[in-house]
């Protein structure tokens, strides 16, 4: 065991080697590029399990002395503690399953080796990010996962939407990286010995000696970085667009692993962040608003993957809500709640994405929910695994989501009291946040099951060319007169097999495994205390206050009722297409009879609640597109416009003008220095 821990660098190295092999060698030696990556990631998972068992808050492994430049020393050092091994196991496990799934999903795509090479690279960066014991190293891998994400979103680069989404993701992430870089510089100036390793920065003595401004400034900057990577308000705009990438990528990077890097960073830095309750409240508020907004938007989406994307944004908001509620004595509980939700979310969200991908695969790349229906017979595995994932997302007992969402809500509910204990005046704001979180739980259940019912329930319908919802004409991306084999069509180019079949075993098995996880991990880790017990082995954890929280029945009961209400409403509204009442009645006759007055209720609902909701949704949409998008666009446009209309004008090519401008600048500078 000790051997594996001491050579923990093997965890990032295996996927890297696998990826490089897949990218450069595999084709030449006639090996399926899928194999080396799957083996590498699988090995990494096994090694992670070994590390998981040996987690120790003080254990670090120095691999090499990476940068030594004067007083700027950054060793390549890995930390094997509770938090990192937890993330490591989760990341490698999900990655392994997704790689296996992708082996079936991506078969036949011209970019097949490239895909696996990039996945290998991603797993390398992500495991490095999780393991690194140094803010600078974390930053380096942070940029690395950003690049992998960029490459994978733009995987089908011939498709303009994919290329645009990739650029958008990269730019927004760069915006966040500035915050991270600033935080690092600031830390560098204030910590003793300019040592940016976690054990030094997060040590009690360092934290005590921080200047006043740094106590809230650095946490704020770190959170800024996290909002971009973890898609929070106002920088979440890139994530829904990122669904232009292949579905396994969405499942792996934009649902389960990479987007949680921000959450991980905040959790890792909790001792630092706990210095400033104001920032914690801000984190919780931003998280809550993001969760609500994204849930509202998800209500009206017809693209199955986009529903899931907004759902991811919403759930990430949940995690930040949890982390933000760690005021005073709640710090430890909050981290456990946040990380637990991260952990369970990885399972069920990856599952939901893979299931969506399976649907998409089977429907011939159609993902609009209005164009198919009632697939539960044709795709039983997909249907029932999706159902399990949906239940977990909605938070129904005893699935994983129930336990973690419950913990988040408990932490949030206890926050006002904890704030009063430490005399934090604005702590009462956590009260409204708690109820907004409840509302979000209701909406989550509703939109999740809306998607489920629209896809799998009701009469069977497959997408056809005569479908009224079909796009007017197929968009061809082949018009750039060349036939290079590396240039994919706009859809991923696996052969056009018959529509409406269940996916092959290589795709369904990972879904089944994940479904088992979505059902069981909550039960296994939550009430048994295994999860909390493991996180105990995390650096800086022992110094955090641990309040024994009394178990109350209120929160779980209320949240379950709310979730069930959401599911019920979704069922009433979407289980049957209104234009085919007879077949719906045949399918769900008892329920249909029980609600004879449904038509009436529907109308009332449509007139009042739905209108209100639509208004909300529309407002959120407008806010999303106009305000946030406009803001991002505007920020990007200012330098461009300034350069074009002001600065470029001076480059008129005239020697004398150049000399005159230089002379004038020198004269003015001289004058300024002399007389000010």
């Amino acid at each position, binding site marked *: 065991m000790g051997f594996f821990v001491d050579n923990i660098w093997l965890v990032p190295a295996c996927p890297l080697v696998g990826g490089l092999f897949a990218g450069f060698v595999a084709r030449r030696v006639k090996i399926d590029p899928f194999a080396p990556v799957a083996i590498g990631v699988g090995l990494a998972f096994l090694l992670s399990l070994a590390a998981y068992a040996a987690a120790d808050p003080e254990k670090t492994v120095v691999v090499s002395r990476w940068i030594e430049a004067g007083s700027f020393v950054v060793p390549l050092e890995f930390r094997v503690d509770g938090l990192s091994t937890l993330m490591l196991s989760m990341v490698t496990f999900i990655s392994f399953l997704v790689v296996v799934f992708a082996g079936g999903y991506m078969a036949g795509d011209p970019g097949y080796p490239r895909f696996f090479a990039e996945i290998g690279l991603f797993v390398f960066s992500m495991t490095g990010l999780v393991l690194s014991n140094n803010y600078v190293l974390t930053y380096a891998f942070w*940029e690395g996962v950003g690049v992998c994400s960029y490459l994978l979103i733009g995987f089908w680069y011939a498709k303009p939407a994919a290329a645009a989404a990739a650029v958008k993701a990269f730019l927004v992430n760069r915006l966040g990286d500035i915050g991270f870089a600033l935080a690092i510089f600031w830390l560098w100036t204030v910590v003793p010995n300019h040592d940016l390793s976690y054990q030094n920065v997060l040590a009690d003595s360092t934290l005590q000696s921080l200047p006043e401004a740094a106590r809230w400034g650095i946490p704020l900057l770190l959170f800024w970085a996290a909002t971009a990577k973890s898609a929070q308000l106002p920088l979440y705009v890139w994530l829904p667009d990122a669904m232009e990438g292949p579905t396994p990528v969405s499942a792996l990077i934009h649902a389960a692993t990479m987007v949680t890097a921000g959450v991980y960073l905040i959790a890792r830095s909790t001792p630092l962040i706990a210095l400033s309750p104001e920032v914690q409240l801000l984190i919780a508020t931003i998280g809550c608003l993001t969760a609500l907004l994204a849930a509202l938007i998800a209500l009206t989406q017809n693209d199955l993957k986009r529903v899931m994307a907004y759902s991811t944004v919403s759930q990430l908001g949940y995690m930040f809500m949890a982390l933000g509620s760690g005021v005073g004595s709640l710090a430890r509980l909050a981290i456990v709640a946040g990380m637990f939700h991260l952990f369970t979310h990885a399972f069920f969200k990856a599952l939901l994405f893979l299931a969506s991908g399976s649907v998409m695969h089977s429907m011939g790349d159609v993902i609009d929910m209005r164009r198919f229906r009632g697939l539960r017979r044709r795709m039983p595995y997909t249907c029932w695994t999706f159902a399990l994932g949906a239940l977990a997302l909605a938070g129904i007992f005893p699935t994983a989501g129930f336990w973690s969402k419950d913990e988040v809500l408990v932490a949030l509910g206890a926050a006002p009291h904890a704030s009063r204990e430490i005399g934090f005046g604005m702590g009462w704001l956590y009260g409204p946040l708690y109820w907004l979180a409840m509302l979000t739980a209701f909406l989550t259940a509703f939109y999740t099951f809306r998607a489920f019912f629209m896809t799998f329930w009701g009469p069977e319908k497959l997408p056809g060319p005569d479908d009224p919802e079909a796009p007017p004409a197929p968009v061809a991306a082949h018009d750039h007169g060349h036939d290079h084999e590396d240039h994919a069509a706009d859809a991923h180019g696996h052969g056009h097999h018959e529509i409406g079949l269940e996916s092959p075993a290589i795709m369904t098995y990972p879904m089944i495994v994940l479904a088992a996880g979505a059902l069981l991990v909550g039960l296994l880790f939550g009430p048994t205390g295994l999860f909390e017990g493991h996180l105990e082995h995390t650096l800086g954890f022992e110094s955090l206050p641990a309040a024994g929280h009394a178990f109350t029945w209120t929160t779980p009961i209320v949240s379950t009722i709310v979730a069930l209400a959401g599911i019920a409403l979704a069922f009433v509204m979407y289980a049957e297409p209104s234009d085919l009442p007879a077949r719906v009645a045949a399918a769900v006759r008892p329920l249909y009879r029980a609600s004879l007055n449904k038509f009436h209720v529907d109308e009332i609902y449509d007139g009042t609640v739905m209108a209100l909701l639509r208004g909300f949704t529309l407002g959120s949409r407008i806010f999303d597109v106009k305000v946030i998008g406009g803001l991002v666009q505007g920020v990007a446009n200012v330098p461009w416009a300034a350069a074009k209309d002001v600065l470029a004008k001076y480059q008129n090519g005239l020697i004398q003008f*150049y000399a005159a401008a230089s002379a004038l600048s020198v004269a003015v500078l001289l004058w300024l220095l002399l007389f000010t």
Partner: protein
Amino acid sequence: MTPEQAYQTVQQTLYVLAPEILLVAVAIVMMTASPFVKVARKHWCALAAAALAAAVMVLSATRHVDPDVYAASAINDAFSFYVRLFVLLSGFIMLGLAHREPPEGRAAEFFGSFLMLEAGTMLTASSNDLILLFVGLELVSIPTYLWLYLSRRSAATREATTKYFFLSIFASALTLYGMTFLYGAAGTTNLKALGALTASSIPYFPNMSLGILAVVFVMGGLCFRIAAVPLHFYAPDVYQASPLPVTAMLSWVPKVVGSAAMIRVLTAVLASRQMGDPLVHKVVILCWIIAVATMTLGNMVGLLQTDLKRLLAYSSIAHAGYIMVGITAAFAGGEKGIAFYHGVEAVLFYLVAYAFMTLGAFGLIQALQTRDGRPATSIYDLSGAGWSNRIPAFGLTICLLSLLGFPPMAGFLGKFQIFSAAFAAVEGPEAFSLQLLAVIGMLNAAVGAFYYLRIIVLMYLGEPAEPLTAVGGWPVALATATCAVMSILVTIASEPISRACHEAAVASNARPAAAIELPPPGTATAAVAPPAIRVARD
């Protein structure tokens, strides 16, 4: 000092400058022989390479010669040794890039003037005397005019030469005027002595305005060399109009000359004073303004460009801004010298990283030609090159990522050091402005990322343009491969380079022996305040 000592000093100076003298001598022989003998271009090139190699050997052989720093006009400290060594090594890369550039009949003059400008660069780094330093600067400029004009005679190169020549003599006049005041303030042109005098308790910048005049004009003139605002104007036009190997040289050699001169003439002379000193305070303001203006202008106008050379010219301007950030930090260093070392060290490290990334980028663009034998000029020429010319495009991607400052490339570590030097330069209320500078720098780096990224995106995600062919033969391949590999290696194996930079930074500020006997600062300095700080007359 007795005549014997003077003789000995001159002798040692000659030893110190032996590599430069060797290069100049070979250059003169080449240029003189050129009309009389008929030798192929590649042989002239080989001769130049051999001269460079010999100079490296001479340089290492004279490593131990150490003339008296207060008497000799050239010194052999770590700064001069490492900078000269690196300039010589980068000379091989430039030679590799330019080996086919001159027409057959002009090769001797072309490579001869290359040797001269190498010698001028080295002279600037090793000189310890204002006059010699100025000669070094001119020994770079004059061959540069020739380079700009010699290899190709078109309306564009003619215009580029005119622009560069006229603005260069203008900048020279500015530099000289500043040097005049530097000399006038203390009565000696020996830079180490100047440094010692400013450090001493004697108020040798008796009137602060003399110091301001000196710094403003010298800085103004040197801004031309490194292409910083307000004398940056020439860069885009001249880069765009010149052949690529010349542009590559222009983006690197003047930068190292200007930075070395700034360190030798300004930072090392004034760094003995603290940030609290009014002169240093004003100089920091000056550099701050220049740095911010340069970075912002370079990056913002860079966003508009579609011409590759013009884009890289603005990139070069932006990088001059980052160098100025380091220089600002060096100025703010103060008596303790800690931040001075950080600043100078960061600048030197950045120059190393910059050499590889910029020479690599220019070299790879030069290597990619369209089918009709025209080098790629617009960024759209590179569209889709990532798949049609995998290896060159991959190298170019590495260099561009390094220019962008992407970890773990060399540019990332360079920027990181520069910004952290600015962050840590001073404490107290003035720290804020320097930290703000670093923040502005980082914002700029984020904006600037866009235009490098645009090229990468085009190369990998763009519609393929007409296929490009890689040209240049093994010298170009070797040179560019070295650049690309080093762009990564500099970070991974940063230890020797950063140690050299550190030694050089310490050496550049060292004022040995005599200065040690100075009375401790604080006793005499406080009593004998500069009598004539009369900025405003009230």
